[in-house]
């Protein structure tokens, strides 16, 4: 008995049916209008260069006294946290009574080529935190850093602990040199000075292709074949397109910030090894003394769990909590389980510390 028991006639039928469905899927795609994203109403409370800080408006006024400021990564657009009505971390946090703000970095261009990590962290983030604190009339805010934004938030909290009430990190790399970290493996021998001096800003398309190469067959091909299974489901098709739009809607990376991020974080692993400086300031995770909640995804192919879960060994706080979410780097925002578990976990954790 062999492992393959495919009836030849069925194989022929399957091949033909699949081809027809693929053709139909393409035909359907040509008829579909562009998809929208962003489910929650929001207002801009602060602008600077291309950066905008938004405050989201829920159905009822927030009950939490300390606002949450979401610091997203530079490498993707932040609307992933508010993708659509039934897939929104923001909406679910608002429903729990939280007061949610978000930094939208915009799309850097050649004028932003010389922005450094100091400009981003001690500049943009610091002024955004001040703006939120002023707007909410509080002294400190809760920071929620996501992915690269989580690493930035850790740096900010270490350098400005008096401005952060509680720190939440989601899918955040801390140890950048764990064995499962494919991106890290690829950049270890990169001459990043030559790279940035040559390219200037790092093109978004290049970043996207790098991410696709983490799982080349699955991401370049298999997921599109899967479209034949959802062809008749308009909602699922729109969900697919919305996600597709987000994945490929990437900003270019400011050259100088990219240079330092690769050198100090990926190649030097200084966040855990020490010696990290942002501008003139030392960054020492032992200075992160406020309560910390670290949420990571067990099937994360971009930020392996091993890269995140070490955070507890390095921060200075004695109030550290971590949650391992069953899902991937994207699923932690958009999966059904994420909608149920993640906002509730964040809210409960904050509420316990607000008493």
């Amino acid at each position, binding site marked *: *008995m062999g*492992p*393959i028991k*495919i*009836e*030849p006639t*069925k*194989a*022929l039928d*399957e*091949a*033909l049916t*699949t*081809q*027809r469905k*693929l*053709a139909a899927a*393409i035909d359907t*795609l*040509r*008829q*579909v209008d*562009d998809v929208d994203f962003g489910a929650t109403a929001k207002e801009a409370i602060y602008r600077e260069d291309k950066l905008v800080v938004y405050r989201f408006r829920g159905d009822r006024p927030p009950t939490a006294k300390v606002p949450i400021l979401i610091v997203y990564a530079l490498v993707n657009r932040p609307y992933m946290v508010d993708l659509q009505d039934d897939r929104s971390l923001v909406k679910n946090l608002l429903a729990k009574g939280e007061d949610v703000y978000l930094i939208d970095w915009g799309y850097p261009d*050649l004028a932003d080529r010389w922005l450094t990590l100091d*400009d981003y962290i001690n*500049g943009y983030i610091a002024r955004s935190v001040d703006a939120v604190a002023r707007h909410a009339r509080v002294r400190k805010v809760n920071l929620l850093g996501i992915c690269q934004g989580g690493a930035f938030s850790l740096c900010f909290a270490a350098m400005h602990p*008096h401005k952060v009430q509680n720190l939440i990190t989601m899918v955040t790399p801390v140890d950048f040199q764990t064995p499962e970290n*494919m991106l890290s*493996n*690829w950049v*270890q021998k*990169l*001459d990043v000075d*030559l790279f940035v001096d040559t*390219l200037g800003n790092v093109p978004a398309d290049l970043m996207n292709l790098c991410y*696709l*190469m983490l799982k*080349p*067959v*699955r991401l*370049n*091909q*298999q*997921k*599109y074949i899967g479209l034949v299974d959802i062809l008749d489901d308009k909602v699922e098709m729109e969900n697919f*397109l919305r996600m*597709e739009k987000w994945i490929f809607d990437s900003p270019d990376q400011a050259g100088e910030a990219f240079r330092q991020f690769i050198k100090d974080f990926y190649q030097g692993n200084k966040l855990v090894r020490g010696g990290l400086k942002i501008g*003139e*300031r*030392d960054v020492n995770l*032992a*200075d992160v*003394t406020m309560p910390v909640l670290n949420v990571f995804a067990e099937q994360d192919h971009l930020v392996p769990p091993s890269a995140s879960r070490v955070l*507890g060994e390095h921060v*200075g*706080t*004695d*109030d550290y*909590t*971590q949650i391992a979410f069953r899902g991937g780097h994207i699923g932690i925002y958009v999966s059904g389980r994420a909608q149920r578990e993640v906002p509730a976990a964040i809210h409960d954790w904050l509420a316990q510390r607000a008493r």
Partner: protein
Amino acid sequence: MGESSIPDWMKQWQALSQQSVNAWTEVARDAMSQAGHGRVDGFEQWSRAFGAGPGKGGQAETIERLVDGAKNYVAFMQSLIAAASANAPNGVPSWSDALRQAFTMPGGPASFEHPLMRLWKEQATAGHAQAALGKLFGTLPGGANPAEELKSWLQLPAFGYLREHQEHQQKSAVAWVDYQEQLARYNAKMLEAARRGFELFEGKLSEREQPGRQIESLRALYDLWVDAAEEGYAEIALSKEFRDVYGALTNAQMRLRSQIHQEIERLSADLGMPTRSELNNIGERLQALRREVRAQRGGDAFIDELATLRREFDDLRAAVEGARASDREGSAKAAAVGTGTPAPKAARKTARAGEQAVPATKKPPKRRARNARSERAVAAVAPGNFASRIARFADASLGSRTGKNVETAEKAHKPGKPRKSGKKKH
């Protein structure tokens, strides 16, 4: 179908192929007519047709990616069925043999291209430069080791009026040869990943020989194949050898790009056009200027903050000293009342000395009330707000070290390194 004869098989296969072409052509014809083209046949034209006709919804890029994925999957199915039908003893296809014969990495070579290589192909200007370089160096002499011969040829010293230009071209050519070498190393690694993927695929197949676990559809076979391919690829992509190869290829392309940039800059300068370097210089200066302006603005704000803090500090010091003096005065009076005799001169002097610490403009009757207010103010602000303001000031004006010290002072109840034992982990 196990009972079908081989000619039946072939007939069905031919019919399938025809149906397949018809299906693709039908869709392609619609797309082409919308895009203003005439009728076309065949898969390639079909996929190109969608490139030309994005549709009304702006989903052109998604369609393009779907077409790429679909092409490879359809090719997988067709090659598998074709190989199986050709190896069908007694009309029963040997799928395993077919897999071995038809095996190519799922997704084809394009899926495994180095991202920079792929991006470069997509960039028209760079692509032209690359093609031009390829043509130029493709005509150079070969030999047993063409790359090495080319390199030694390119290291000949330049001379004459165009020496600098020749040197630059030689460096560009060396960069090109090096890039090709690194690309070959990268492609060899991808081949290794493909081989490893197939080994893993065979292992996965052998686990499915028991009834109930067998694979009964092309799609299930394909999915298993993808799992194996990804695992094989991950093994290679996470290796130290791959790290070297990947880095070397990236660096080689950057050197080549840099050479091309320099050449374009030279030409632009000759034509009196602005160059990328000039724009970079302007951008860098602009950002430096912005930082200076911001620091200046921040400096003014901190001077104000410092003045406010000084005033508060003076008030607080006066309040504390006033309170102490009041205490001493009260004690002296109490002592005098207790003994029924006037307070000694020394005590009166001390009280007066204490009074003098209070600003002279304030009259004694109001002093006590003011002291009480100050004490309340001290109680209200100390230590948090005042320390925090000091921290903010120090943080921004003196650097993080001072800021951290103040922060640490606020948390004086937690001396030394924070404890870890109380951490909660879920």
